[in-house]
């Protein structure tokens, strides 16, 4: 409790209104605005270009004019004609939600174990999680593909989801969060008669909610944008949005207009999600004091 309150106070003090006298000069602010503004525009420009291209008329697709004029929804019409956008959206959401939830859950359980207990082989096991970062996708790809085929889940969403249910990033980040959690609370719950399982759900999770939400959204975005693994598993059907892009790629070159339109539509949900939840994401992430 004290720790949490302390953190919140530290955050509040970090609010710009409470900074030393004389640190906020106009020139410093102007330089800051200029630098950050430039960087922001640079970062956002390709995204603008994506949408600009998707709004060009088919014959202007190769045009490099900065403004997409005249506007045309033809690419979107084409994309909608070819793709069952609603179905793809649903599939992608299901896939991304399952993956994000799975990674969150396995990460939470492992992080809880690492943060709340001392046990033999702890650091070695933690290393086992982190070391998965060292294993290239290429090494695991084929053996996993073969296993999925033996399980009979090729060409299903389950095949995409199964191998992605645990990620080192989730474990690492969540461990930081759970470790920052006051141990007294866990102990109080034990004394109050909760087992470790119900302590996790009645004490830890409710208090980590902002952090879990922030991380969950990050994982969701990652899963949403996953392309390689679905491309392998979902060979027969373009069942998720990112694979919809493949419908516009081919030996005879790419169909840029509908492809950009599809890409734009694929990005839109996460962009909107991010814009709506930005404060929560940033705060949840920052408050964890990831160090």
């Amino acid at each position, binding site marked *: 409790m004290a720790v949490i309150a302390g953190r919140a106070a*530290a955050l509040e*003090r*970090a609010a710009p209104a409470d900074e030393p006298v004389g640190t906020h000069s106009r020139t410093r602010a102007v*330089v*800051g*605005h200029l*630098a*950050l503004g430039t*960087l*922001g*525009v640079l*970062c*956002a*420009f*390709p*995204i603008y*270009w*994506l949408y600009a291209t998707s709004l060009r008329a088919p014959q202007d697709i190769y045009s*490099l004019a*900065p403004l997409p004029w005249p506007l045309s929804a033809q690419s979107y019409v084409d994309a909608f004609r070819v793709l069952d956008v609603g179905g793809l959206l649903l599939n992608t959401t299901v896939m991304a939600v399952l993956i994000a939830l799975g990674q969150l859950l396995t990460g939470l*359980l*492992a992080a*809880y174990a*690492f943060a709340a*207990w001392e*046990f033999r082989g*702890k650091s070695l*096991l933690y290393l*086992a999680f982190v*070391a998965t*970062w*060292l*294993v*290239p996708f*290429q*090494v695991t*790809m*084929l*053996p*996993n593909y073969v*296993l999925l085929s033996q399980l009979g889940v090729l060409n299903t969403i389950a095949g995409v989801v199964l*191998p992605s249910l*645990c990620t080192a990033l989730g474990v690492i980040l969540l461990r930081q969060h759970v470790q920052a959690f006051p141990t007294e609370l866990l102990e109080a719950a034990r004394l109050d008669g909760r087992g470790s399982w119900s302590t996790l759900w009645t004490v830890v999770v409710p208090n980590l909610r902002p952090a879990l939400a922030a991380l969950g959204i990050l994982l969701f975005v990652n899963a949403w*944008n996953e*392309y*390689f693994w679905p491309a392998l598993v979902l060979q027969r059907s373009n069942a998720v949005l*990112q694979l919809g*892009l493949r419908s516009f790629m081919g030996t005879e070159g790419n169909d840029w207009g509908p492809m*950009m339109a599809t*890409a734009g539509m*694929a*990005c839109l949900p996460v962009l909107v999600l*991010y*814009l709506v939840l*930005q404060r929560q994401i940033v705060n949840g*992430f*920052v*408050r*964890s004091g990831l*160090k």
Partner: protein
Amino acid sequence: MDAPAPVAVRAVPPPSRSARLRRAGRSLVPYLYLAPGLVLLGIWVYRPLVQTGQLSFFSWNLLPTTPMVPVGFENYERLFTLPEFGTSIWRTVVLVLGLLPFTVVVPVAVGLLARRVRGRAAVIYQALVFAPLLIAPVAGAAVWQWLLDPRSGAINQVLGTTTNWLQEPGPAQLAIIVITGWHVLGFAVLVVAAGLAGISDDYAGAAALDGATPGQVTRWITLPLLSPTLVFLVLMTVLLSAQWSFPLIDTLTNGGPAGATTNVYYLLWDYGFHSFDAGLGAAAGVIFFAGFGVIAAALVALSDRVTFHDN
């Protein structure tokens, strides 16, 4: 005077069998929580890794119809004599070095600059910087292809150059670095923001009172205290650069021009899936794992010496 309460000191009896069992059961608990993650990783990461380790001692093209020929360390020997292997390592080093500005320098600069601007503006800038993370790499790559068009792409028009970014070795490597950097910048900015928020303002206040200029505060206080975050980012960059850049290389340059953007990760892919030399690919994978493992261990050891935790 209190009469002493005499305690008959008995020999402490050994714990009963059921108590021992219960104790053993309790010590199992953390492992149960780890189990789901470990089982999943065991199945989906370490099982393939072990298979790869075995495969690296065979010559085989993965086809059930062809026999696996044991060849000892021949795959490794071949790998080390291949000139591409050496150059690809060098290119990986360049890639990592090239990405460090995006994962460390710029995010720190953004973190420090963000303190100068107030209110909504900072939030908006952060949203803009973060946005590329939300774009699927494949879509992002497609857009960059346009922007990098040698004739009328926005980049050349702004810079007034005629470079063909994806067709000339140096610029192609640069383009891959920049685009990868563009993608991961937002995440790094978020991590740095978290790190900065974790440093008590009291230190900066104390230093200011002690007479340090803002520059000195940054150099002498903020950055050293941010070092654990920076090490985390460096570690991530070193370990994951090659993986981050993979989809972009695969979409934009296919490792070209003339192999100029082929890093170890892409080479591994190439051996494993284009050359059908599974043994060689496996050997490369094992070396990749071991090499990066050693580097990571060294980095972690180093970081313990150079970082300071604010406690």
